[in-house]
């Protein structure tokens, strides 16, 4: 490569590179293939959204990256590279030095994610002293500072309180404080706002957004809430049945959904400014069982475009890269190119227009 070309292309440093990651759960009902050869990368300071229905493998993906899949589950293939190191080959002992320091987790459900019999302060101090060579007193000061950062009022006094004395939104802030305590390069936020009411959701997201912007922390936001993703993320990965079926930059994706699943998923979001009388828009059918996947495209049975086509029912679609090669739209659909080009023969019928 010439020097000019190297200078022209901005250096894109990846915090995280996931390649063909595969995680199975070995249950009595059979092998549940929760994550099926998922690849994704996150640049330093970038925010990606991983979107999908319940049971699409989002949380399993997060835990696989952190090396926290417990039996009967197991990561069976692929690689995870964090800051240039192949952490998927690390022992648990090595991973303990990575978790909470370089990559951390903001857990879903703040009601159960904190230990009910340990004070909030101690739970924050725990993660600080685990990774920083400082005494408990200094760690406590740092913890108070963190609580102030996440805008918990009376931070100093509330250090000694227990989780049951905190409201849901305040607990979620504590979880964010814990995740950011050691200034990690990547925060994986698994449904961080699901259990909260809408106003609290917005406040918590604002706090998270401000803090990661200040620290240039990369975020992997896992959610089924497309509204949250639209506000927060640079790039979006849509998961279906353990696969990333579409990935695109957020503005591109919200303008044009190439995978039919993305389109119907987006259409089923309720918007106050577009409420019409009539049944709520839904996606017919259910996601396939990850223990018994269909032979062809996993979305075929529910797909408004491909349902009934022999190609879709029998052949698994390969990923297709479209658009700007620097930030491509990658879609797993037999008709990705046609749909990307806006071919009306492959459009999803609008309700009422058929």
């Amino acid at each position, binding site marked *: 490569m010439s020097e000019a070309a190297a200078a022209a292309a901005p250096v894109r440093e990846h915090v995280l590179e996931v390649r063909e990651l595969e995680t199975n759960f070995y249950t009595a009902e059979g092998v549940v293939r929760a994550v099926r050869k998922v690849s994704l990368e996150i640049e330093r300071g970038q925010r990606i959204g991983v979107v999908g229905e319940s049971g699409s493998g989002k949380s399993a993906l997060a835990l696989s990256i952190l090396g926290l899949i417990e039996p009967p589950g197991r990561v069976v293939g692929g690689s995870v590279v964090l800051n240039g190191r192949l952490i998927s080959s690390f022992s648990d002992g090595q991973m303990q030095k990575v978790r909470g320091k370089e990559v951390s987790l903001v857990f879903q459900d703040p009601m159960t994610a904190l230990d*009910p019999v340990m004070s909030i302060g101690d739970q924050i101090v725990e993660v600080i002293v*685990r990774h920083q060579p400082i005494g408990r007193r200094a760690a406590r000061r740092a913890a108070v500072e963190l609580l102030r950062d996440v805008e918990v009022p009376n931070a100093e006094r509330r250090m000694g309180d227990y989780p049951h004395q905190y409201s849901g939104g305040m607990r979620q802030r504590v979880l964010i404080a814990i995740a950011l305590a050691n200034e990690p390069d990547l925060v994986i936020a698994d449904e961080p706002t699901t259990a909260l009411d809408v106003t609290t959701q917005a406040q918590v997201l604002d706090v998270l957004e401000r803090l990661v912007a200040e620290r240039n922390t990369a975020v992997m936001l896992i959610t089924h809430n497309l509204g949250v993703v639209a506000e927060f993320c640079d790039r979006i990965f849509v998961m279906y049945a353990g696969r990333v079926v579409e990935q695109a930059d957020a503005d591109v994706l919200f303008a044009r959904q190439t995978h039919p699943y993305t389109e119907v998923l987006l259409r089923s979001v309720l918007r106050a400014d577009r409420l019409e009388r009539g049944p709520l828009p839904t996606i017919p059918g259910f996601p396939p069982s990850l223990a018994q996947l269909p032979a062809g495209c996993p979305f075929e049975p529910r797909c408004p475009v491909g349902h009934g086509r022999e190609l879709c029912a029998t052949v698994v679609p390969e990923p297709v890269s479209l658009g700007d090669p620097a930030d491509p739209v990658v879609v797993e659909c037999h008709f990705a190119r046609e749909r990307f080009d806006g071919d009306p023969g492959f459009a999803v019928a609008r309700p009422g227009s058929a």
Partner: protein
Amino acid sequence: MTRVVASKLSGAVIAVFGASLVAFLFLRALPGNPARLIVGPLATPQAIVNQEHTMGLNQPLWVQYWRYIKGIFSGNWGFSYSTGETVRSELFSRLPASLELGLYAFLFAFVFAVLLALIATYRRRPWVDGTIRAISFFGLGTPPFWFGLVALLLLSQIWPIFPGPEGRLSLNVVAPPTVTHLYTVDALIAGQWSTLLNALWHLALPAITLGLAPFAFLVRLLRANLLDTSRENFIVVARSKGLGRFAAFARHALPNAFLPTLTAGGLLLAQLLAGSVLVEEVFNWPGVGQFVVNAILEQDYSVVQTFVLLSAVAYVFVNLVVDILYGVVDPRVRVPVAR
């Protein structure tokens, strides 16, 4: 805090009062007449009436009850008709043996239950878990007197590792100078190591026998609780902070799993302290068990009343301690203190 303790204390006093009343009334509601038992089958009706008169049994119930309560507080706990000794000296000579046995049985049950439950849940090997569950089933399903006899046969007769049923110490060992009446503690205070070892050696089999069922119960309880808490979300969070499996388990799963065990442990301790007739009988242990059973059969009012009262005090006291401990370990039940 003082207010909380005070309110719990007043509840405890009421409970003890209730127990004393129930014991008193039940004994008198039973068929039979202690005066007749004392004077014998050939006595004249007049002799029985005279005997009732000396014992105060002809007085109204409330007077009898009042005399009994007054006696308790003035240290006059009455006489045992069957032995002729005062109830105080009878019980005090026997209670320490039962207390010591109960304490060690509880210690064995609790310590081993915690250890085994930890191993069963932390090392998730099916055969380890299976073995521990089998032990616990065995412990729950085995009558203690049978277990005690078999233990004596195997570990004392066939392989003489432990002493036979000869009481609290070997015949040639002198009891340590009395401080607490508990031989192990007294021996420790006096620095008599051989006596301490001898006492422990004698305690081993009876304590294991008596503690077997509580141990099995606690293992099951703690194992189930540990399995539940180790699946909690906060364990995943603890691991995501960089804690190792054991640290997450010990610091977060264990304290949470421990709470119900504390309650159960308190009840078991109180029960063990009250002694056990069958196990004391098998090991020839000089405790209260046999004495009290005899007293019940002989309608020895004073003995039974006092024993029930002391048991009630032990129960209430242990539960009081558990309640207070609970407040220390579980912040959710801490009663808010008025500021």
